[in-house]
């Protein structure tokens, strides 16, 4: 029983990471209706930046916040320079650009930081005061950090004028322009936020999966599964989907199919969701009257 509980709690911790990857995907999907396939590699690259900052002697938390800032600016710059020119292009063009970004980030990371697997420090070491019977310190820390990210993001979107403008631009870009919102910049900010969220997820998962250029290939798949399961147009759904996927993956991996086949859980979830409930569990229908 105790082992079972521990599996669940470990699942919640990784679920928090899937939730934030899913959230990053939803941020971009909502405003552009594109799935950013490079999301995982961008997060991986951010994590490498954090690793390098720590390597050159920066304290963990300074590196942590600096990395978030750098990632935000990086995401913004990528949208402004690479995606803005194809804003009105067909979906397939955008998909090619995303795959291009994925390959570039992957190769550049391998080239600059090489392919050897590196350990990444956790700010919540074993034996720190937050450790408890069922949770390791890093698991609790991860959950807390992820909840903070969610809280900050949701209050930004709900309570600030820029957040409101972002939601408006996502919903009805033409009307948004007519009230003076610079829609294209809102997409840029969306990319910045997605990159920043990805960076946090990367820094939280790196102590578990270790740091190397392909670390996110599996995680991104879980993120997709989470986003689809929760409803790709619903941020809350994506978060709940993330936790469901995390727990499910852990339980099935430990007791049913074994760790080697864990990743197929994500694939099965994606296929099942798309066939049975394409809008996801919480994909909301907008009420309109005409």
């Amino acid at each position: 029983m105790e082992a079972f509980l521990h599996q669940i709690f470990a699942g919640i911790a990784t679920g928090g990471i899937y939730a934030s990857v899913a959230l990053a995907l939803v941020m971009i999907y909502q405003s552009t209706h594109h799935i950013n396939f490079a999301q995982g590699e961008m997060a991986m690259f951010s994590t490498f930046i954090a690793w390098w900052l720590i390597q050159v002697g920066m304290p963990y938390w300074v590196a942590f916040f600096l990395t978030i800032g750098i990632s935000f600016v990086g995401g913004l710059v990528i949208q402004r320079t690479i995606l803005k020119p194809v804003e009105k292009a067909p979906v397939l063009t955008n998909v090619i650009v995303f795959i291009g970004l994925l390959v570039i980030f992957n190769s550049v990371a391998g080239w600059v930081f090489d392919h050897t697997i590196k350990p990444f420090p956790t700010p919540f070491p074993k034996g720190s005061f937050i450790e408890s019977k069922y949770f390791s310190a890093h698991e609790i820390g991860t959950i807390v950090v992820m909840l903070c990210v969610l809280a900050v993001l949701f209050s930004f979107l709900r309570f600030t004028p820029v957040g409101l403008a972002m939601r408006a631009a996502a919903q009805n870009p033409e009307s948004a322009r007519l009230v003076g919102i610079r829609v294209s910049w809102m997409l840029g900010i969306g990319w910045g936020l997605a990159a920043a969220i990805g960076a946090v997820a990367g820094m939280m998962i790196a102590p578990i999966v270790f740091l190397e250029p392909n670390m996110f290939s599996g995680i991104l798949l879980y993120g997709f599964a989470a986003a689809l399961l929760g409803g790709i147009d619903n941020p809350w759904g994506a978060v709940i989907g993330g936790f469901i996927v995390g727990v499910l993956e852990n339980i099935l991996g430990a007791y049913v199919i074994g760790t080697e086949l864990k990743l197929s859980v994500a694939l099965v979830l994606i296929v099942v969701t798309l066939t049975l409930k394409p809008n996801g569990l919480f994909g909301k229908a907008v009420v309109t009257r005409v």
Partner: protein
Amino acid sequence: MPDLLEVKGLTASYGATQVLFDIDFRLAQGEITAILGANGAGKTTTLRAICQAVKTGGSVLFDGQQLVGKSTESVVRLGVAQVPDGRGTFTALSVEDNLKLGAYVRKDRAGIAQDIEKAYTRFPRLKERRNQQAGTLSGGEQQMLAISRALMLRPRLLLLDEPSFGLAPLIVAEIFRIMRRINEEEKVSMLLVEQNANIALDVAHHAYLLETGRIAVSGPSAQIKNDETIRRVYLGY
């Protein structure tokens, strides 16, 4: 009165299809000008051309400033608000958020709160529904919201695209009464595009008749209203 808007040789096209051909018109400060015409005459495109939401040529001077070549967002920031075709409601947001968005480019918090209250006094129905999703409003309420949202900019020029469209006659009358009052009390100049010539000529000072992308007739509203030939040939009543 000096001209607030002076349009000369305006052309507009969607891709290869030209929709407006050399349109000239002007709008005096503080007045309501109507652009009338049948379906497909280019009325909506004229408004979209002023806002630079479509490819345009020629000249559009707003208070002496050239609008052609600016982005839609920059035109709005100069004080040109639009009530778009189909009302442009942010359907998934609340009524109050829709109003706040109308004032997005303004920075005076106190003034914005005041203007929201003013909108609620003007249309009490909106106050009752302030926290409701805007998509659940009736057509008339959405039109009231669209006009209120545009006014939140404190615009110097208000562009209205068929505010009577799809609404019951009583609601149309109410909306036009309030529009006239806004024009008289707050001196907001308006450019009104309408298919319903009768009601538009009642409220407008000047009118232009648009026929397949060209101005066919223009003059003071009263004159157009009383000219039997124009009425029969262009307005069909």
